[in-house]
């Protein structure tokens, strides 16, 4: 008997007991639904996190104080001179800038708002995906010349100057007055959580917040391969200049991506184990009903044997029936899972990702369950004695 005929026969007998078949395959269905939905949502989430991270660029690195030393920073770990010297001596470093920040009051247009005030350099625009919507970003001459200028994000601008353009208006930071020279679109990422930003030259920032310090430095290379070398050489220069070995540590995007992957890996493992148990239980259900089916159809098996079916033919027939039953559950589960994934992500507001691998895996997995749990009943059917089987009522 060829495969097409076997599948037809299997489908026929499943259809004859449709309710029973659906109930039997429910375990498989729920298992596959869970796997598909969770994996789709998980992968969608992972992808959107990755996309955010890639926005910052895989050619970026950060150098900060190694907090594992259990010593409070003195505030003198990074200086403006460090930046210039590293830039001059490490050819791999294309951009390098200090990052100083302070969450503080911003006065402007008779209002007081709070924002993250970043002391930074012109290079910032090269390392971060900023969209300038009006005016310009900080320039090198702004920074070198300690000009009292600021770039603010549009949200901030809207809040301080709701009726007019913020460009050219003045804001007060501490006791200093700055002129707004540019507007940028608010940086959006899953981590930004609606914080508003004000960007000013680092030297100006240090004037405004004399107790503040440069928290870390941020750099970029021309291509991702140079990140490690650039980071290591920069740290070497810092250690030499500050005479403190082991004071600094470097981070690059690769490490962060690995950290995310580790988290999602654990999540996938946990879900995999749960789904595995669900599918195991489902498989036992299928095995059980297949054993019932063999008993019910003993006469049919005997007849088929009398008409010329070999043991192999009977084995394959029941095996295919178990596989078709599991695939039925698998396909329904897949549809429900994909639907569920879209539903969940509509609520969670990130796109689900149903990859072909997932679908193929679910398909293969349900078929494998059919084979594993179908083999015992199928073998029992194939080993029936045709005379005994024909005599059975």
């Amino acid at each position, binding site marked *: 008997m060829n495969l097409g*005929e076997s599948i037809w026969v299997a489908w026929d007998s499943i259809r004859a007991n449709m309710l029973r078949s659906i109930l039997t395959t429910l375990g498989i269905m729920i298992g596959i639904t869970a796997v598909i939905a969770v994996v789709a949502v998980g992968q969608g989430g992972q992808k959107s996190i990755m996309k955010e991270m890639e926005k910052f660029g895989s050619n970026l690195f950060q150098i900060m104080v190694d907090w594992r030393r259990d010593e409070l920073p003195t505030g003198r770990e990074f200086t403006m001179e460090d930046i210039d010297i590293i830039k001059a001596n490490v050819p791999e470093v294309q951009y390098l800038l200090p990052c100083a920040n302070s969450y503080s009051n911003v006065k402007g247009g008779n209002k007081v708002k709070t924002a993250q005030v970043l002391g930074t350099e012109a290079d910032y625009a090269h390392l971060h995906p900023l969209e300038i919507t009006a005016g310009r970003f900080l320039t090198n001459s702004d920074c070198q010349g300690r000009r009292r200028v600021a770039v603010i994000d549009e949200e901030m601008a809207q809040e301080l100057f709701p009726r007019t353009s913020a460009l050219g208006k003045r804001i007060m930071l501490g006791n200093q007055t700055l002129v707004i020279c540019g507007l940028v679109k608010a940086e959006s990422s899953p981590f930004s959580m609606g914080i508003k930003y004000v960007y000013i030259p680092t030297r100006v920032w240090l004037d405004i917040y004399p107790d503040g310090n440069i928290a870390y430095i941020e750099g970029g290379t021309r291509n991702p391969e140079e990140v490690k070398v650039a980071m290591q050489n920069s740290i070497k220069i810092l250690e030499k200049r500050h005479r403190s070995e082991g004071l600094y540590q470097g981070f690059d995007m690769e490490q962060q991506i690995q950290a995310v992957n580790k988290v999602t890996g654990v999540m996938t493992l946990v879900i995999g184990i749960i789904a595995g148990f669900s599918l195991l239980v489902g498989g036992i259900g299928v095995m059980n009903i297949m054993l019932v089916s063999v008993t019910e159809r003993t006469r049919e098996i005997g007849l088929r044997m009398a008409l010329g079916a070999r*043991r192999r033919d009977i084995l394959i027939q029941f095996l295919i029936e178990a596989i078709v039953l599991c695939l039925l559950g698998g396909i329904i589960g897949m549809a429900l899972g994909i639907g569920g994934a879209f539903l969940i992500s509509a609520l969670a507001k990130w796109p689900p990702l149903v990859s072909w691998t997932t679908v193929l895996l679910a398909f293969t997995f349900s078929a494998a369950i059919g084979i594993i749990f179908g083999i015992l009943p199928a073998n029992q059917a194939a080993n029936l004695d045709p005379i005994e089987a*024909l005599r059975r009522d």
Partner: protein
Amino acid sequence: MIKMEQINKIYRPHSNPVHALQDVSLHIKTGDFVAIMGPSGSGKSTLMNLMGCLDTPNSGTYWLGGVEVSSLNSDQLATVRNRKIGFVFQNYNLLPRMTALRNVELPMLYAGVEKEERKARALDCIGRVGMLDRIHHRPSELSGGQCQRIAIARALVNNPNIILADEPTGNLDSVTSLEIMNIFQSLHRENTTIVLVTHEADIAAFARRILHFRDGKLIKDELLNPLLTEPSTAKGGEHI
């Protein structure tokens, strides 16, 4: 066609043995129409199982269409059943979910016959039993006699060497039984070899020859209806 020599069949040979067949030898020629009669426990069912290659004897040889089949393995026996034997059962044994046509096609599925030819041959055999107007009916929509006709068509479809019919009229009324026996007789006229098991003398009377069994032994080989078709020879150690 069928040649059995010194066939012995013993059930439970080690504990409480039952000697179901003892030294049975017989010979059935191509085109013959043989009835096997005997009371229950006479060994006629065992003989049918052996003839049908559903079982193997403990000793003796069984030649079917030129092949010694008593020592074949289960797969080889399945192939012999498929190609050389057509079964007709008392309770028809049609698969309830399949149409008459698909039931008749079933033996050809295991013979690996192509789809087109399967249908053509099935229709031909259904025509021979006069059921062409019922091919898309399921067994539950057919009468007992109609079911048995379909079963006969199924038995014919692989052009077997012999038709083995086990009480084919056991579930039918006398009028329908007569119709079924007429079909067997017309098949016999077309030179089909038929072996029929029955305990009813008036059914056995349709055959050309009756083999009587008792206590696992062939006790009488009776030739009737000599005019029906050509002669046959019976070779039996016990026959009279």
